[in-house]
């Protein structure tokens, strides 16, 4: 489990490409610099997507990613800092 303490959590479960990053961007825009958004997704592609997004977008820094098994399914959790 990650020790990062998030400012806000976005439930992106069930969302498919491109919605997890689209919703995450919207949420991130409401945060101030240094605040952290935690995104919980079920889309496996979101792992690479969040990496790619953070690489290009100037306002997002990917701090950590983890995969959690919960109730027989995988959750992909991403921690993004607003830059």
């Amino acid at each position, binding site marked *: 489990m990650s020790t990062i303490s998030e400012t806000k959590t976005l439930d992106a479960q069930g969302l*498919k490409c491109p*919605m997890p*990053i*689209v919703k995450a961007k919207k949420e991130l825009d409401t945060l101030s610099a240094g605040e952290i958004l935690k995104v919980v997704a079920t889309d496996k592609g979101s792992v690479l997507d969040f990496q*790619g997004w953070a690489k290009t977008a100037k306002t997002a820094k990917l701090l950590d990613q983890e995969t959690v098994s919960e109730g027989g399914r995988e959750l992909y959790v991403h921690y993004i800092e607003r830059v």
Partner: protein
Amino acid sequence: MTDMTAVPADLNALKDLLAGLDRRMSALEATMESELSAIKEQLPEDKAAIIVFSGDLDKMIAAHIIATGAATMGLETTLFFTFWGLNALKERRSLEGKNLAERMMALMTPTGSKELHPSQMAFMGAGAAMLRQMMKQKDVASLEDLMALAKEMGVRTVACEMSMEVMGVRHEELREGVELGGVASFLAEASKARVSLFI
């Protein structure tokens, strides 16, 4: 070139030497500055320019997924609709003031995104319904959702005026917020874009 190794005979000679150096420095700075700004002019910016030529449902979905993704990544994104792609922008069908060929074209082409067919397995309309149903089941955003999202995220929509003319599509048939442009408006964006696609 000033001989830097020669020791100046007196103070005035030293002054002249410094003045000469100063002039050369300024000239060098000016050259550097103009060359740098010329190079900067050539560098791409955080932009994406996408041509939407196809009016196929599947390709239209792909174009809008890429456009909304690009906007999310901070790219200033423009979609250029041309030829069959224009059908997705239509909101109403008007036959007024159109010649026979234009009227036929208007009647035989889709009016709006909801009437588009996929590039494969169209099955007289059943293919579109099937594809939409399959996407819905898998919680993928619909084309209409993606189009609304693109608009909300500030993705620019430009319709190619020449192809509108050819196909007999009128500006008033298109939805609100569509700009008109030509090849130069696309190239101006594309030559500055990091991502440029033809779909």
